[in-house]
């Protein structure tokens, strides 16, 4: 999803996880991950929460299908618990606007704020007022510099990044009958989200599939260059059985290169739902799977973590929402599970 690209492009990254290969998703300070499903407001506390007339604000970084799904998950959970959402904003990846949004939302005195801090450095000052006011802060995928759990924030929630990369490897290996050569197009930048996903793919192929070899590795920072990168990779390795592409945007360029070459045999696996990629998949093209996240569940877990923080209950510092392997066979269910919306009509028609 675009949010991941844009978020990482706009942020200083968590360097700790950037290059090392881990067997699971880890948090910005090395925290081990807790499944988001374990973050639940106890039934015994629900009445007390409803009686509290609490309010919440959702101060997002951007607007996208992903953010809409996170918002829907959080809103449903807040509504269930009688919490009014008093402000929803979109900073459009502008750090100054995010600061203004926080100040404006604070006028309404929310008890809980859900947000993706655009940047650890600029966000530190931006969230200071909310932090000082004791607002229960829940962050998505990023952490302002110097913030300490549980004193300053309730939790960080993100995707299960390792599982996304691993499931991409498993899906590609299955489509290649567990043998052959693959190309690995990774995000060439020191960024927490994409680095963990990319490295998980590579680690899984290297460790779990001895008959598959990664014969070409190419970094990418500008999605617009994906087609030329794929062309060069195919020129050197005409027998590539599969290509991993770090996210759906550049995967569209790789797909264009394969089509231009009349290549129908090389398989593509990528991450994050995209209509053009899904359309190729359901039409039996090069794309064999898309790995997505459970964005709605992620939003629900953020809301629940905010409530638990408000109640002063223990919340795991770092939680992850599950990954989903979406194929032509389960595209409708997968899309719904990820974003809580039906797939685009073109995808359904092509299925």
């Amino acid at each position, binding site marked *: 999803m675009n949010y991941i690209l844009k978020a990482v492009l706009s*942020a*200083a990254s968590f360097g700790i996880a950037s290059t090392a290969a881990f067997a699971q998703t880890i948090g910005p300070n090395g925290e081990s991950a807790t499944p988001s499903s374990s973050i639940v407001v106890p039934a015994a506390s629900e009445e007390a929460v409803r009686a509290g007339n609490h309010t919440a604000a959702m101060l997002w970084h951007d607007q996208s299908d992903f953010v809409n799904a996170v918002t829907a998950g959080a809103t449903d959970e807040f509504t269930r618990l009688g919490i009014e959402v008093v402000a929803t904003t979109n900073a459009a990846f502008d*750090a*100054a606007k995010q600061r203004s949004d926080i100040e*404006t939302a604070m*006028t309404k005195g929310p008890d809980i704020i859900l947000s993706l801090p655009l*940047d650890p450095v*600029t966000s*530190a*000052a931006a969230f200071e007022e909310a932090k000082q006011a004791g607002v229960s802060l829940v962050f998505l995928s990023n952490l302002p510099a110097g913030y300490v759990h549980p004193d300053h924030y309730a939790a960080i929630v993100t995707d299960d990044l390792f599982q996304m990369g691993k499931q991409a490897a498993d899906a590609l290996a299955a489509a290649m009958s567990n043998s052959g050569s693959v190309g690995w197009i990774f995000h060439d930048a020191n960024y927490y989200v994409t680095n963990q996903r990319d490295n998980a793919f590579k680690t899984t192929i290297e460790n779990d599939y001895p008959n598959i070899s990664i014969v070409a590795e190419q970094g990418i920072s500008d999605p617009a260059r994906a087609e030329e990168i794929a062309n060069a990779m195919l020129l050197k390795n005409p027998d590539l059985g599969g290509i991993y592409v770090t996210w759906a945007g550049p995967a569209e360029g790789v797909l264009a290169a394969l089509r231009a070459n009349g290549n129908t045999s090389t398989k593509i696996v990528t991450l994050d739902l995209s209509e053009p990629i899904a359309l190729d998949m359901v039409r039996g093209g090069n794309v064999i799977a898309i790995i997505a996240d459970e964005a709605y569940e992620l939003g629900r877990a953020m809301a629940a973590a905010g409530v638990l923080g408000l109640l002063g209950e223990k919340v795991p510092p770092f939680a992850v929402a599950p990954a989903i392997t979406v194929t032509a066979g389960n595209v409708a269910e997968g899309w719904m599970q990820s974003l809580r919306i039906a797939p685009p009509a073109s995808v359904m028609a092509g299925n």
Partner: protein
Amino acid sequence: MSRIGVPKGFDLQKSVIYVGFFTIFLFFSFTLHDDGFLTTRNLTNIVLQTAPATIMAIGLVFVISAGEFDLSFGSAVAVSALAAAVVLQDYPMLVGVLAGIGAGTLIGALNGVLVAYLRLPSFLVTLATLGLFAGIARSMTNLRSIPVINDSFTGIFGSGKLASVPSLVIWTILAVAVGHFLYWHTRFGAHVLATGDNPRAAQVAGIRIERVRFLVLTLCGATAGLAGILYAGRLQAAKYTLGESDLMTVIAAVIVGGTALKGGKGSIIGALFGSLLMGMLNNGLILMGLSVSDQMIVRGLIILIAVAVSLRDTSH
């Protein structure tokens, strides 16, 4: 002007910003009375949040009044903020401030040379320098954000107060006062208006229009530099994206504020109210609890109406 329903002598175009501003202010005051809109804190926030855009708008009023355009000020803001933040890591505040404002001024001067002396169209020149300096801002720090930990700097240009008045409010008042004085009470201001109104006539009258064009673009760069410093002070950090999203907001503020796109006419006070109007819209629509999409739609419609009224040619 004499129209049905409009009092004789009342110029709707000239007054649209003030009528629009107070109408929307009253609307939010009534509808958001219980949501804290009228609190001192919220109203102060609006001024603080719009301070950099207001200062950029002042520079742009001079440029457009002179019949030119500047699309590059957003990039100049980012380069200036980053230059200040980088220098402040090793040098005292004054050096950082000079680096920030100097960077913006140099970018403006480059635009000025290309437009005034090489006679290239300002729209295209600044479209090119917009991309050029956006790239430079990205490469300056390899996409990293730079923290600003100089307390004097963040106090004077960000979160500080003087006699209970926030420093950003003081900077806004100072910039508006200086801009208004330059625009209406100096020969330079008169030359800007004359150049924008009719450059050939201005030249015949002895005005060095190249010099005017150079100076307005340089001034616009300098105001972008000051805006960059204010962003760095307010966020206690600088980032390559600063100022990027201000382009449309600032242009809308200037046009709604009564500056004619074809040059020769403008208003610094109008630009101030235009900028405050944009900030008030952002603030009020969030407090109304509208979804993000609805906020964008309503804001777009209001700006469209204001621009349509302020630009409508009444000579027909």
